[in-house]
């Protein structure tokens, strides 16, 4: 099927343009340094000279919780940033350069063209987050204690769904406009919007941001399930890609 042929091309592109390398390296580094930072931060604070003796005693000893919080905080921030940076050109750049027109005069449906973009980014992010998770798990084991692997796996799965939402949103933005710069601006706006709504008290519980909180809870054994947020996130992915397809199908290239 032609979807897999384009997916092969997209993955080759991720590799050749070093996009895969960048995502992998960024995530792996944060996987490694997050537990390390959690371990060292209190010591670093204490080592500040002239720290009043009483205050130094107030700084708590680092725990497993700190390691997981660091990991999720760093990967959420940089994962979302990468999702935006690596997806913003996906469709817009091909329209800008004329390669989309070139490829689509051969037997290739526009649905397959779009879906392959998403799939390739999904594969890259999955691979990179797996490496980051292994790195974090191993360092946490060395510095603190073993994390329960099943709930840590669940945490990473939830983060991945969160990233997919942002990838799909950015691909949609990239489809709507003709230039990469415009796509970046639009996607950044969408990101702020999703984060903004996500931080509102009641509605926020239904938004992808909640996935990260749920994940932390899971990994630390204090599960506070946010199933609605998961369903909404999956729904958003499908909706964004669906709209992108409806728009792209009618576009003249």
């Amino acid at each position, binding site marked *: 099927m032609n979807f897999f042929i384009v997916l092969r091309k997209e993955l080759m592109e991720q590799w050749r343009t*070093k*996009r895969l*390398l*960048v995502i992998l*390296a*960024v995530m*792996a*580094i944060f996987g*490694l*340094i997050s537990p*390390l930072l959690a*371990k*060292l931060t209190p*010591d670093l604070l*204490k*080592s500040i000279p002239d720290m009043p003796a009483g205050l130094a005693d107030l700084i708590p000893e680092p725990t497993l919780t700190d390691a997981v919080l660091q990991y999720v905080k760093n990967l959420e921030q940089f994962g979302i940033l990468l999702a935006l*940076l690596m997806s913003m050109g996906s469709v817009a750049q091909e329209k800008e350069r004329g390669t989309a027109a070139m490829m689509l005069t051969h037997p290739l449906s526009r649905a397959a063209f779009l879906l392959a973009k998403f799939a390739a980014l999904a594969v890259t992010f999955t691979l990179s987050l797996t490496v980051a998770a292994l*790195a974090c798990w191993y*360092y946490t084991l*060395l*510095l603190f204690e073993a994390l329960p692997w099943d709930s840590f796996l669940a945490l990473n799965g939830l983060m991945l769904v969160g990233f997919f939402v942002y990838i799909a949103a950015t691909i949609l933005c990239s489809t709507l406009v003709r230039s990469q710069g415009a796509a970046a601006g639009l996607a950044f706006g969408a990101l702020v919007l999703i984060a903004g709504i996500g931080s509102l008290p009641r509605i926020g519980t239904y938004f992808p941001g909640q996935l990260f909180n749920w994940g932390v809870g899971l990994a630390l054994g204090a599960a506070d399930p946010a199933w609605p947020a998961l369903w909404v996130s999956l729904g958003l992915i499908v909706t964004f890609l669906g709209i992108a397809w409806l728009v792209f199908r009618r576009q003249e290239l």
Partner: protein
Amino acid sequence: MPFADFQQYIPFLIPVVIIQLILMIAALVDLLRREKTRGPKWLWALIIVLVNYIGPIIYFVAGRQDA
């Protein structure tokens, strides 16, 4: 906390440094083989080598320009 305590964590940083080096080398190789960049080449070379860790990434995201 004495410095010796920190020393025991230095081995943990080795993988991080290796990844950093891989990124830097990949960026430099890419820069050398590329005909056009956004802005002067020497400036990108400096950014890649001197700006720790994010230098190569900035280059990959913003510096490359394809003919």
